[in-house]
């Protein structure tokens, strides 16, 4: 047991280790696959996002450039008119009017003379603007006291640069209250001297719309910053034109990251960068807009960008975890099952062992030494019992007592252990009851009563019990629901009766028959006739009957029958217990009875004749002297009784004495035609009284009663018939 436990533990350890290895390999494989997949998906997404962003930026830039070009064109194409008008400064007012009129993108325009260029107009800046409601062109003058135009950026920068210049964006306060930017260019006179600055204002309203229409990812946004870092477009309204990106970066906790992107963007580079802002990674794609110095950017939170792939990744991880859990569960179930099967196998072995012991006990209960009676020449006996399982519900028994063969065969309903328990009870009961009973029906009735009480499992037993007088061949038997035995090749006539154990108090009738020399009684349980082959056919009574009578010897017949059944059943498993008993009677039955007859007159002097009659019988039966004397005494008393009292005084009468000599008993029938008298009705004499109290008579009948085994009185045809029996 100890070593078994250790091996079990070892086995457990082995299988656990193998299971662990499988799980680890599975996890590594799954994780590696998903990591690779994740990496490549991310790279793909990044590339794709980059391409999309670049293309969006390019198209936005193109659109911006279109408008920028229009505005620049409007100014450049008006330069010659301005130059031409310089000669007559008052006519210069037509130039901005023309610019606004001819170019819908231009919301306002001015031509501002360089101070001192015209003597007549030291400061001169007519400004034409389109009324946003009526669309009419209005003209104002910018040369006012509170607007020092020569110091404005749009004025100074072109002078400085000697070329076109796009101003920083600004809010137009006088005009449409909108975000604007201005393109300005110096106007040269014929001498190549800068005479004035011509401008065109464009609204940046469309820019916000344009940038807002870029949709790369749901939460992505785009920005436009000016060359100085002024925020022109941004989803946060409050920042627009209020914050400079440099300032924004300086205030932010993520200033380092923001500074580097600012640097790249403000220096007019194109590209993409990863920026960590407020704990989240963002990918920023940026591109400059030529000439204006603006920088466009698209900001995509990485979370957003990788949302899909991360969702898939999570799903994959969950599935992998589930897979691993499933693998673990399956492995555990497999391991458990293996243990269970091992345990079951062990338990089965234990049960098998116990059943084997049960089998041995059961087999030891039935007599199975054959030949059973080697010393006997008058009986040839064979029996077999083959349980379908280790233990079974069939039984048989036999033994010889007083020259009588007691035998029985039985079949408990059901199979296996429950049947075996009932079988052993039945077997024991038969032994116990038949030990002091020579009447088969009494044995069966007694057994039935015992077995019916407390028969809670409702098991019953078909049972056949027989007692064969080996001397006379007289077979007395009682059947309790068992199939009829075969006498030679014919069925022994049996009353069906109920099986044992059905109900207490039932009566089982006895039957008898006489066996002749060489008769064979074949008893069997239905395991023989109902033996099935592989195609579920039964051996059947016909096949059985065909083999009966083929052999005289009991064992040979049994062997032949068994061989036939084995051959028929072949490989099919035995379906029921199989029991066969063969009784081969080989005695010449003794003449059962001899009869002697004596007729006496009712004269007391005839008694010696009776004594002689009895003496002859005693000699014939070789009875000992004391038994002979007992018989003599009983006969004398009975006959004296008739002689003295049956007939009236003086009347002549006869006493008929008939003796029936049986092998084991003597029967005397005393008949007279005298007055009716039943000696068995006479009260028994009290033999305990003292000499004085004792009556003189009354001892005769008393002695008859004591000396004989049975005493019966009958009045038949006006005759007293007294029969007495003595077993010898």
């Amino acid at each position, binding site marked *: 047991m100890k070593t078994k436990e250790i091996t079990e533990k070892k086995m457990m350890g082995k299988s656990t280790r193998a299971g662990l290895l499988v799980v680890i390999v599975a996890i590594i494989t799954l994780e590696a696959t998903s990591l690779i997949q994740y990496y490549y998906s991310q790279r793909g997404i990044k590339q794709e996002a980059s391409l999309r962003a670049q293309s969006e930026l390019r198209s936005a830039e193109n659109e911006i450039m279109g408008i920028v070009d229009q505005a620049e064109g409007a100014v450049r194409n008006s330069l010659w008119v301005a130059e031409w008008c310089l000669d007559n400064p008052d006519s210069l007012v037509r130039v901005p009017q023309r610019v606004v009129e001819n170019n819908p993108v231009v919301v306002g325009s001015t031509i501002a003379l360089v101070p001192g260029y015209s003597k007549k107009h030291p400061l001169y800046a007519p400004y034409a603007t389109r009324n946003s409601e009526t669309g009419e062109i209005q003209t104002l003058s910018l040369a006012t006291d509170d607007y020092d135009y020569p110091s404005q950026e749009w004025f100074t920068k072109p002078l400085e640069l000697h070329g076109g210049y796009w101003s920083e964006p600004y809010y137009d306060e006088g005009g449409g209250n909108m975000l604007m930017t201005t393109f300005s260019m110096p106007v040269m006179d014929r001498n190549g001297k800068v005479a004035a600055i011509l401008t065109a204002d464009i609204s940046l309203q469309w820019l916000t719309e344009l940038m807002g229409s870029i949709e790369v990812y749901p939460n992505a946004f785009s920005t436009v910053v000016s060359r100085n870092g002024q925020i022109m477009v941004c989803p946060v309204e409050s920042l627009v034109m209020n914050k400079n990106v440099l300032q924004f970066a300086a205030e932010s906790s993520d200033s380092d990251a923001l500074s580097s992107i600012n640097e790249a963007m403000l220096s007019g580079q194109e590209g993409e960068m990863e920026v960590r802002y407020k704990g989240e990674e963002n990918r920023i794609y940026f591109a400059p807009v030529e000439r204006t110095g603006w920088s466009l950017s698209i900001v995509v939170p990485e979370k957003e960008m990788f949302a899909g792939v991360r969702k898939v990744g999570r799903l994959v991880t969950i599935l992998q975890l589930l897979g691993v859990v499933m693998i673990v569960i399956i492995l555990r179930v497999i391991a458990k099952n293996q243990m269970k099967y091992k345990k079951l196998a062990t338990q089965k072995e234990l049960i098998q062992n116990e059943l084997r012991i049960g089998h041995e006990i059961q087999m030891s209960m039935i007599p199975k030494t054959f030949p059973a009676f080697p010393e006997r020449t008058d009986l040839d006996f064979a029996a077999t019992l083959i349980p379908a399982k280790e233990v079974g519900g069939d039984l048989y028994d036999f033994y010889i007592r007083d020259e009588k063969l007691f035998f029985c065969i039985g079949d408990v309903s059901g199979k296996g252990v429950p049947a075996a328990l009932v079988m052993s009870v039945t077997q024991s009961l038969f032994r116990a009851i038949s030990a002091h009973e020579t009447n088969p029906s009494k044995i069966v009735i007694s057994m039935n009563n015992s077995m019916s009480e407390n028969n809670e499992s409702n098991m019953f037993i078909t049972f056949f019990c027989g007692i064969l007088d080996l001397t006379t061949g007289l077979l007395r038997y009682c059947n309790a629901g068992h199939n009829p035995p075969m006498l030679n090749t014919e069925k022994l006539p049996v009353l069906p009766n109920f099986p044992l154990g059905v109900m207490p108090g039932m009566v089982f009738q006895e039957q008898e028959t006489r066996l002749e020399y060489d008769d064979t009684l074949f008893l069997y349980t239905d395991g023989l006739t109902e033996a099935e082959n592989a195609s579920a056919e039964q051996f059947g009574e016909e096949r059985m009957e065909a083999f009966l009578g083929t052999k005289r010897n009991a064992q040979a017949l049994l062997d032949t029958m068994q061989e036939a059944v084995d051959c028929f059943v072949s490989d099919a498993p035995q379906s029921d217990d199989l029991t066969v008993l063969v009784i081969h009677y080989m005695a010449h039955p003794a003449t059962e009875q001899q009869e002697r007859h004596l007729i006496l007159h009712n004269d007391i*002097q005839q008694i010696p004749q009776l*004594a002689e009659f009895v003496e002859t019988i005693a000699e014939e039966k070789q009875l000992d002297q*004391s038994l002979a004397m007992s018989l003599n005494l009983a006969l004398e008393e009975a006959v004296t009784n008739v002689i003295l009292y049956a007939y009236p005084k003086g009347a002549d009468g006869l006493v008929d004495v008939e003796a029936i000599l049986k092998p084991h008993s003597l029967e005397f029938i005393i008949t007279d035609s005298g007055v009716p008298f039943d000696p068995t009705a006479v009260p028994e004499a009290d033999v305990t009284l003292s*000499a004085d109290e004792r009556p*003189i008579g009354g001892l005769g009948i008393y*002695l008859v009663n004591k*000396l004989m085994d049975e005493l019966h009185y009958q009045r038949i045809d006006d005759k007293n018939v007294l029969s007495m029996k003595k077993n010898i």
Partner: protein
Amino acid sequence: MNITIENANNITIAKLAGRLDTPASSEVTPIFEQLQNSADGTVVLDCTNLAYISSSGLRLFLTLRKAASAKGGKVILRSISNDIRQVFMMTGFLNLFEIE
């Protein structure tokens, strides 16, 4: 059935020989009546040669025993065979007689 009677020292010894069956009993009834006369003393019934006894014989024994008890005498049975002892036992007679 043959009975011989001897008298000595106030003891009467009756020697019974043969079968004391019913006809024999009626035959020896007078002898037993005679024995009753000696029943004031001791009567010994010597059964050495008694082969058989039936109830009628037992009645003779019992009658003698009753007479003895009436007269203050006693009846002694001598040498009864085993078979007859069985009959006496069966009938309770062993208690009624002194057995030698």
